[in-house]
């Protein structure tokens, strides 16, 4: 085998690093620095308006401090987040910030000396002045490896990444032989973060030893699981960590071309990744002779077109070839015969983002975190009825209870926890009794869920388990590519049965048919989509059988969610007769006053059950209630 020329790469990198560091220091030259989180979730909460307010207020006071757009810190519940680093103070995070608060922060803290403690979220460094993030209870459970830079550096500036230690791992990898890089990754025990959890090092070895040229490397950023958004957050907040990971992987397996396959539904991730690739090419970190070595590697960005099944590697490859994304039989695995029949390594965004950390600190450091079979950390996207929604990175082996109640601060509005849905359409719903389960690849699968992409939706007493099973099945049924009969037709039948359940038209014997169909779909499908599609149904049947029975036998939805099984009703005794909140807010004008007694009445024939009146009714009255079955409404 040809020996790759690597001399001189270290000095080439030293030059780049020195420049980046001086630019980074220049940013902090005595002036306050303001950062605004402008990832997609921040934007949805109004970060761009906050950014504009800050800039105009600075201009009004003729201040010229740098305003930097950063990514997502993972504290999505507090978006938009603004951080002000002023000399003499620790860097302080504020959130949620609106344009008015933002202008006040500029006037009183940037210009004046009042750090406006009433808007503080936390300080980034420990100090005796403002509580810092490390004082939060969640800090005891979190360990940030791949989210380390997110929300702290400007994702549109490669210099920020380099000054924070970026691309040093690549320079280090170049001093090692590719075999040694693979050995290091094997030693770290890293398992693929796409969901299946196959050993990354072993996959690399197969690909390196496979015959055929050129070899391809694909970063799978087709994060299709509804409810998972960490890949989006990483690409929007720290795209270079993924590119560096790809360079290391590409060097190790001897790849010449790389692709990043991103969902088109993530326009900002696409934009920032594009920019990051251009910057890396400019500094010769990508392209011919990376850093002056003999290793040539370039990456193209490919936009997915909205097909969930393309998250499966063979379907993804078909899509890259310009075909409809239908999966093919494995083996042969892509590692030996993938894109255009050449050896192709497909790794998830998170898997690749771990690599700089692993190479820099050695496989042992990574393996020091986590459990026997699952090393390192797990990243979860916490959403649903949890207080602290956002991203959480915790060591493998942390329990579900710790993630939901300590990191996530428990359930919103004092409601009761019912279940947690893990792994999206491939995963399952776990009940309270499973909360002390330690999270790793194997324990979740044993419990009937799956690590999957890491989406974690917390459900409370108001969420119907039959409905969530129906929802996921509707999703997989629509996204089934249609190749395998069991997946195409089986999911359709299962959905029909579940539809009847949520309408109160089910029959008790249908439950057995549902289980039988579920087993058949699992057994008769080629790819992960079909093999796991029945999981949400099976896990809810296992843990929440009573809810299914209530729907079927009594026509009642215990969570008061299924619209065909509930009715909205205004209790006359509770209705404050002079208040018109519900009447004014009803979107279909279904509410009117009683002609003489003035309490409000809902016309059940007009009501669309949107729940707006229930939210509008002032909390001191609580006159609007949901009843199930609807026959409970007095005539």
């Amino acid at each position, binding site marked *: 085998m040809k020996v790759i020329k690597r001399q001189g790469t270290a000095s080439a990198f030293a030059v780049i690093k020195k420049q980046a560091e001086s630019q980074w220091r220049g940013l902090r030259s005595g002036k306050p620095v303001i950062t605004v989180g402008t990832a*997609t*979730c921040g*934007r*949805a*909460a109004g970060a761009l308006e906050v950014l504009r307010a800050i800039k105009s207020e600075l201009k009004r006071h003729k201040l010229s401090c740098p305003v930097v757009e950063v990514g997502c810190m993972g504290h*999505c*519940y507090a978006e938009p987040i603004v951080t002000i680093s002023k000399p003499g103070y620790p860097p302080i995070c504020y959130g949620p910030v609106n344009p008015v608060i933002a202008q006040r922060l500029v006037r009183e803290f940037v210009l004046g000396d009042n750090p406006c403690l009433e808007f503080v979220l936390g300080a980034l460094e420990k100090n005796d002045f403002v509580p810092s993030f490390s004082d939060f209870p969640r800090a005891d459970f979190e360990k940030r490896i791949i989210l380390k830079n997110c929300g702290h550096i400007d994702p549109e500036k490669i210099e920020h990444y380099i000054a924070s230690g970026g691309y040093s791992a690549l320079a280090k990898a170049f001093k090692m032989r590719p075999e040694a890089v693979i050995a290091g990754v094997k030693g770290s025990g890293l398992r693929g973060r796409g969901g299946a959890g196959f050993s990354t090092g072993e996959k690399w070895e197969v690909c390196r030893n496979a015959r055929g040229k050129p070899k391809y490397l694909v970063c799978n950023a087709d*994060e*299709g*699981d*509804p*409810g*998972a*958004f960490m890949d*989006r*957050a990483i690409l929007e907040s720290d795209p270079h960590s993924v590119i560096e990971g790809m360079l290391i992987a590409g060097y190790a397996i001897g790849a010449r071309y790389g692709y990043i396959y991103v969902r*088109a*539904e*993530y*326009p900002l991730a696409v934009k920032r990744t594009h920019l990051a690739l251009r910057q890396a090419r400019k500094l010769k970190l990508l392209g011919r002779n990376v850093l002056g070595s003999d290793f040539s590697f370039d990456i193209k960005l*490919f*936009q997915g*077109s*909205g*097909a*969930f099944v393309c998250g499966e590697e063979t379907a993804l490859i078909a*899509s*890259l*070839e*310009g*075909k*409809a*994304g239908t999966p093919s039989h494995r083996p042969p695995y892509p590692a030996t015969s993938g894109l255009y029949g050449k050896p192709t390594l497909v790794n998830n965004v998170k898997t690749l983002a771990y690599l700089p950390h692993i190479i820099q600190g050695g496989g042992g450091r990574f393996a020091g975190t986590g459990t026997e079979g699952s090393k390192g950390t797990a990243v979860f*996207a916490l*959403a*649903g*009825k949890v207080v602290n*929604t*956002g991203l959480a990175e915790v060591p493998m082996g942390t329990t579900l209870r710790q993630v939901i109640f300590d990191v996530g601060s428990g359930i919103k509005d004092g409601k009761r926890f019912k279940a947690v*849905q893990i792994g*999206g359409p491939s995963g399952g719903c776990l009940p309270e009794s499973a909360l002390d389960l330690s999270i790793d690849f194997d324990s979740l699968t044993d419990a009937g869920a799956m690590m999957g992409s890491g*989406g974690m*939706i917390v*459900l409370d007493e108001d*969420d119907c388990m039959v409905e*969530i099973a129906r*929802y*996921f099945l509707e*999703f997989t049924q629509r*996204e089934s*590519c249609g190749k395998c009969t069991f997946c195409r037709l089986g999911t359709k039948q299962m959905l029909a049965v579940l539809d009847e359940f949520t309408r109160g038209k089910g029959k008790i014997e249908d439950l057995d048919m549902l289980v039988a169909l579920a087993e058949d779909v699992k057994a008769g499908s080629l790819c992960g989509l079909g093999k796991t599609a029945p999981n949400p149904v099976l896990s809810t049947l296992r843990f929440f059988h009573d809810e299914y029975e209530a729907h079927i036998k009594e026509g009642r939805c215990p969570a008061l969610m299924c619209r065909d099984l509930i009715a909205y009703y205004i209790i006359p005794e509770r209705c404050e007769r002079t208040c018109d909140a519900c009447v004014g*807010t009803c*979107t*279909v004008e279904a509410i009117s006053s009683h002609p003489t007694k003035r309490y409000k009445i809902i016309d059940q024939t007009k009501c*669309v*059950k*949107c*729940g*707006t009146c229930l*939210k509008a009714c002032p909390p001191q009255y609580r006159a609007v209630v949901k009843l199930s079955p609807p026959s409970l409404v007095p005539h």
Partner: protein
Amino acid sequence: MTEEQVKKQARLLLQRFAKKRGNLIPVLQQLQERLGYLPREAMLEVARFLGIPAIDVYSVVTFYNQFRLHPPGRHSIRVCLGTACHMKGGYITLDAWKRRLSIERGQTTPDREFDLDTVACVGCCVMAPVTVVDDKPEGKVEPTRVDGILLSFKLEKEKQ
């Protein structure tokens, strides 16, 4: 747009691509960005250019959710139906849009002002329920907010 204009636009764009099957999806994406949708003539142009049967282009276009066969409206409404949005009432929001616009998902209003569709998670789960209005994700869009957004479009139009 006439057939000739569509063909011209397609040819102009195709010049920038190599004649490789692997370029089919990027070509279709950019074509749709220019034209708003993929008319029959455009698909035929692409098939001719890449030297593949027209049915192959059609099969790819209809396989992926992103591609549209009908002209879009001036404003696009995309209701997120990810898990978090669904559980927080995304389906109720979708109903509200349908009711107000008098169209079903996948359709455009007769005056071509709005088109309505769903999207499977835009990754803003914490702002659920989300509706993406003209590429901007709007958080906490409930039926009353639907009315608010439509009102703001109406006011904007009246100003012009």
